[in-house]
């Protein structure tokens, strides 16, 4: 598999405290990558760095082998999509929330209309199209959030705990739907989660991040079943609980 995004020499600090320290990391074309780690391990910072939403400090970010500087940042960022734990919808209707990314790219009204209709359908929320985003349930809002990301047909999709605030049945349903969507579109995905079940179900490769460093990286099943010494402290107890 070829590398889609590569980061090198990333050293991000808050004052003297290291937040993220990654000498080199590759996100491969087509993979669904899980990221796990305790709170404050640097997961979100890693995501922001990969998604070009935070400056890489002295390090570098390459997209398809080309280094991304300030000039390219917007162009490359527009090939990505991000969905966070909070749906953070705008103060307008569901329709316009989903359409926003395409509008920002100045796409034609016709194209926007067709695509919004399509993704409303995929996420089973066509009936909510005209509803104001502030009047949605948590599960509905998160579906809008994901549709808003997927409509961009991103080359890389970044998900930062998008299911964690949902109740169990809602979560299961949405997780299943989302996995379907990602598989159908073959979207390269970075998925941050605290939930081993989600990780196991959704991802192919897993990295364990602790204290800003990648402690282990490998196929998801392998990492979960045999964590190395550094990762064991974090994974071990989880695995016990599941087995």
């Amino acid at each position: 598999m070829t590398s889609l995004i590569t980061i090198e020499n990333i050293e991000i600090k808050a004052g003297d405290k290291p937040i993220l320290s990654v000498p080199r990391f590759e996100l491969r074309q087509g993979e669904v990558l899980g990221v796990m780690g305790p709170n404050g391990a640097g997961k979100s910072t890693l995501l922001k760095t990969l998604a070009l939403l935070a400056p890489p400090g002295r390090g570098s970010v390459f997209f398809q082998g080309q280094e991304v500087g300030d000039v390219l940042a917007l162009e490359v960022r527009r090939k990505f999509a991000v969905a966070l734990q909070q749906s953070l919808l705008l103060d307008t209707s569901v329709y316009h929330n989903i359409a926003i990314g395409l509008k920002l790219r100045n796409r034609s009204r016709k194209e926007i209309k067709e695509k919004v209709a399509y993704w409303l359908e995929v996420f089973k929320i066509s009936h909510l199209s005209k509803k104001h985003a502030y009047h949605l349930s948590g599960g509905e809002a998160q579906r809008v959030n994901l549709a808003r990301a997927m409509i961009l047909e991103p080359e890389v999709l970044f998900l930062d705990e998008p299911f964690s605030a949902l109740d169990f049945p809602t979560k299961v349903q949405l997780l299943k739907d989302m996995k379907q969507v990602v598989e159908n579109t073959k979207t390269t995905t970075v998925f941050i989660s605290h939930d081993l079940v989600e990780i196991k179900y959704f991802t192919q490769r897993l990295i364990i991040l602790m204290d800003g460093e990648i402690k282990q990286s490998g196929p998801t099943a392998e990492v979960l079943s045999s964590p190395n010494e550094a990762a064991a402290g974090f994974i071990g107890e989880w695995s016990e609980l599941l087995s």
Partner: protein
Amino acid sequence: MELLLQGLRKAIEMILSGDPVILEITWRTLKVSLTAIMISTLIGLPAGMMLGLIKFPGRKLILTLINIGMGLPPVVAGLWITLLLWRSGPLSDFELLYTPTAIIIAQTLVSLPIVTGLTATAFQQINEKLIMQIKALGATKIQLVLILLKESRLAILAGIIAGFGRVIAEVGAAMMVGGNISGETRILTTSIVMEVSKGNFDIALALSFILMTIAFLITFCLTYLQQRKRSQ
């Protein structure tokens, strides 16, 4: 009670008869106040946005000063501006004292802190993650700013409404820097003060009805702008 009815009758009379002096004063009031609030908005909106979004040294101090400025008594603003514009003052060469421009300056000075401060507050309250999310949706810097403006429009318009309320109601500064000169700087509030001092309570009341009507109409328009589309 009789006086109130008399005033109301007089107001209707004066408006219906199209009294040129009343029309002129009303028109000047509108022009001056709207210009002042527009300048305040054009300066205060970007300034408030920057203060709300960008963290830099001295920001807290500036915000504190702006909050103090919200309570700046108009007569104090009027006094400062008078001293600056006086023939013996540093800005005397512009010959602005006792002109409508001087009133606009004074009214801008008293409304600018309100617009800036309330805009800054609105933008300080914006979730940082929302900003990141909007960037992640592919927004350029300008698009980001426009979306944030739209998201904060309730609070921003509240600031503009509050600023306009201050400007249209203001009398002390307008009296001082404008001089209430007939045909030049007489506006509704200064006319009311003058008519009261002359003892013409019916005319003063009539003017007050006109003032309240235009204040109401403009505030209503702004409120409509603020609240529309909530119907969805």
